[in-house]
């Protein structure tokens, strides 16, 4: 019994609303959330393929993919799609997450998002140019 209130004290019992495992199928926004979470599977899958190519180079069995490798091209297109999905959803949040102080105010979220997407565009154009240029070098 509590000395202050005179009421009998019992262990607190909290109600936990049961959550079914298919909760993410109930709404479109929940489903899209789970799709966003699963994009990492494709990103990792493609990096594992890349490391496999590095291993093939190391052990002497490297053969670059050609236009006849339909399955690999389809795999890469799917991985690229989900990687871009990750990139767009992740960089869209950058304005909300990154707080850049300027005096007693913060840099507007729209500016941070513009810089983030500008960085993606810049890296894509410059990176692609460098990677393609190396292919044309006389080594």
């Amino acid at each position, binding site marked *: 019994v509590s000395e202050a209130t005179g009421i009998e004290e019992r262990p607190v019992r909290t109600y936990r609303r049961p959550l079914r*495992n298919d*909760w*993410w199928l109930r709404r479109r926004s929940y489903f899209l959330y*789970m799709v966003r*979470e*699963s994009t*990492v*599977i494709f*990103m*990792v899958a*493609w*990096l*594992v*393929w*890349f*490391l496999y*190519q*590095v*291993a093939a*180079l*190391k052990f002497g069995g*490297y053969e*670059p*993919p*050609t*236009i006849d*490798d339909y399955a*690999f*091209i389809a*795999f*890469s*297109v799917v*991985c*690229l799609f989900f*990687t*871009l999905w*990750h*990139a767009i959803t*992740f*960089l869209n949040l*950058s304005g909300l*997450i990154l707080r850049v102080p300027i005096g007693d105010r913060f840099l507007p979220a729209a500016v941070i998002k513009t810089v*983030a997407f500008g*960085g*993606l565009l810049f*890296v*894509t154009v410059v*990176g*692609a140019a460098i*990677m*393609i240029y*190396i*292919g*044309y*070098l006389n*080594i």
Partner: protein
Amino acid sequence: MAAHVPWHSREDLKPAYGHSFWWFMFGNGGGIAAIFLPVVILVCGVLGPLGIKNFMEDSRHFAWTLGNPLVKLFLLVLCFLTFVHAAHRLRYMLFDLGLRGRGSVMVLEWACYGAAIVGTVIAAVLLFTTP
């Protein structure tokens, strides 16, 4: 009335350093993967097989590119941060899908973060011993 306890001495208010470390790596991994991974997949995975030359054109160009320590470092950082980012997301995704038991969460954490670390070690060994 309970005696006053400074916040830094309270067990229930201590910072979760482990969680903050993985969340920090998750955030950085997400950003790095979002900016750098699309172009690598686009050039090597799609444009390359369609006939546009790139650094994976043949074993000579591939080996020459991987011979640069900065390229090795870039690829290792890309792999490491992407793997850790993926581990963190998968850990919470599987939790959302029903793996919520106390024991299963522990197993899930060890499996996800462990796989990310093992993957990074394999990547480091491959990248720094090739060509």
